């Protein structure tokens, strides 16, 4: 009689084993196996050809471009992520829920489409095209365009990490600091920032990883044109269309290692 309720509340040991095996198999198949294959293929001919491939001028310029984009995008994301999270977590204002939904928008939109929208807006035949041409500013098919496209897809990461954490931590510490005589910046630097530092770091890392790995939006914006500098992953796509299989590996290897 007492065994029945126990059976109803906990699953049997075989169910547990099955669930764990399925989870491990999933991770193994879709995460570990491709990773192992990439590393194996990249180093198939040994370490030296791999290092030589990385030192080619095209490879170096691609790597530098990617890093440049990351160096611009991540600080901007961190700054505006903090602003957005602060406004959403600490205040109630009309349009707050809308702002939260908008922050999640880049996850819902295909990166290729977002790149396309930038072209339609800022390209030479786009809405703002003539204006930009008058001022002789090149956004699409140049670095600013790539930065903008990357910003769009990486923006949510920092904000989402921070909003959840700041809402959970509440406002009491900030109010206490206020009554003790601290000004706005002092409250932010001495009270808020130390409390969110790990979430901020994590959000920045996610943002950087996403920026390095972004392909769709940036490829549209840079139009895969061989004459323009293309970041690493674009090279990898153009290289995969090549018949030469072996040439693929170093490019993929280098952006993959930067991502990880």
């Amino acid at each position: 009689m007492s065994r029945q309720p126990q059976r109803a509340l906990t699953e049997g040991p075989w169910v547990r084993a099955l669930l764990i095996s399925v989870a491990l198999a999933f991770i193994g198949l879709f995460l570990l196996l491709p990773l192992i294959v990439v590393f194996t293929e990249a180093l198939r001919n040994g370490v030296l050809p791999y290092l030589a491939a990385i030192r080619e001028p095209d490879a170096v310029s691609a790597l530098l471009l990617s890093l440049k984009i990351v160096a611009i995008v991540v600080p901007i994301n961190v700054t505006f992520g903090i602003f957005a999270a602060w406004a959403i977590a600490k205040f109630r204002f009309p349009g707050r829920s809308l702002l939260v939904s908008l922050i999640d928008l880049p996850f819902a939109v295909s990166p290729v489409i977002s790149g396309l929208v930038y072209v339609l807006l800022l390209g030479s035949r786009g809405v703002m095209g003539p204006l930009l041409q008058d001022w002789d500013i090149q956004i699409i098919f140049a670095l600013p365009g790539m930065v903008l496209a990357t910003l769009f897809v990486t923006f949510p990461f920092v904000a989402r990490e921070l909003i959840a954490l700041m809402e959970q931590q509440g406002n009491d510490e900030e109010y206490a600091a206020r009554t003790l005589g601290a000004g706005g910046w002092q409250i932010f630097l001495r009270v808020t920032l130390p409390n969110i530092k790990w979430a901020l770091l994590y959000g920045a890392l996610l943002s950087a990883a996403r920026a390095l790995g972004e392909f769709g939006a940036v490829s549209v914006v840079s139009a895969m044109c061989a004459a323009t500098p293309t970041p690493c992953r674009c090279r990898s796509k153009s290289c995969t269309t090549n018949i030469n299989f072996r040439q693929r590996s170093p490019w993929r290897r280098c952006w993959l290692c930067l991502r990880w």
Partner: protein
Amino acid sequence: MQVAVQGLSKAFGETAVLHDINLVVPEGQFCALLGPSGSGKTTLLRIIAGLEFAESGQVLFDNLDVADRSARDRQVGFVFQHYALFRHMTIADNVAFGLQVRERKLRPAAAVITRRVAELLELVQLADYGARYPDQLSGGQRQRVALARALAIEPRVLLLDEPFGALDARVRKDMRTWLRGLQTKLGLTSILVTHDQDEALELADSVAVMEHGHIIQCASPQAIYDQPATPAVYAFLGGANRLTCRVSNGQLFIGDVLLGPLAASDDSAVDLYVRSHDVELLPAAAGTGLQGELLRLTWGGGMTHALVRLQSGTTVEVDVPPWSAQGHSWGVGQAVSVRLRRYGVFGTRAGAHPAASVGL
């Protein structure tokens, strides 16, 4: 410093939270804002602190309107219910915070700050805890740190928002006594928000009972207890029974039982309120006139709580002290009688003043 509030009203969107509040706390006095949840007492406290702003009315510190000053400039010490200690700073840094964020020209030297922190930690009996972090302390200790931190800036008024609400009962009692001693020693004007009547009556020099955004009565604890202005105040302090009575020719009756004379303007139905510990339980043979049947007995460790149904049908809660009834043992279903020792009578019209205060 005297704190006064005049004509204060506050609404959150459509909901009015405070209606025309007037309150004066003289210098050095301890005032308690007592009321149930939703009565507006915390909002009132935060408006005095400058953490919220009112739609209309004035907040006066020594007769000077501070309504346009933010919390930063009002020099108030605020103690939160959940301590609000800075979790990433040590205790000593927490206490020093208020002094360290001052403007350069007003900021004391580092050595002075260290000394002041040591003094304050000594005052709250946490002298050796300076290097610890808040999560290494117990609730009572954290609240004392919060108090020390608030006192560091030499506030002109101390505001406490249910400071002992998150502590367990024993710690709460000890902290209460300690806080009262500290406040008397420092002579600091203080305002405490609480929903615990025992706390308010024990700590405060004056109690303001609030309900639905109004201050119903503001007086000394004794006056609040003995001469409550309305049934709500009576009922809020020490769970009261309500009995419907009538007045006839200057005499008070429950049903056909005469209770005593009552100077009332007219023959009418009135409400009688009596606290459960002001009712005496006696065997039926004692013949007080108020006969009834014992419905339920609960023993709460010392005091026994009895529920009696009177002949008129109303139920009355009675507290029976352990030494009472000359050793009678009560049984459920037993015929008993009750005597009302002290009670308050109020007219049934809403807002009427008591027709008589107490009777014996």
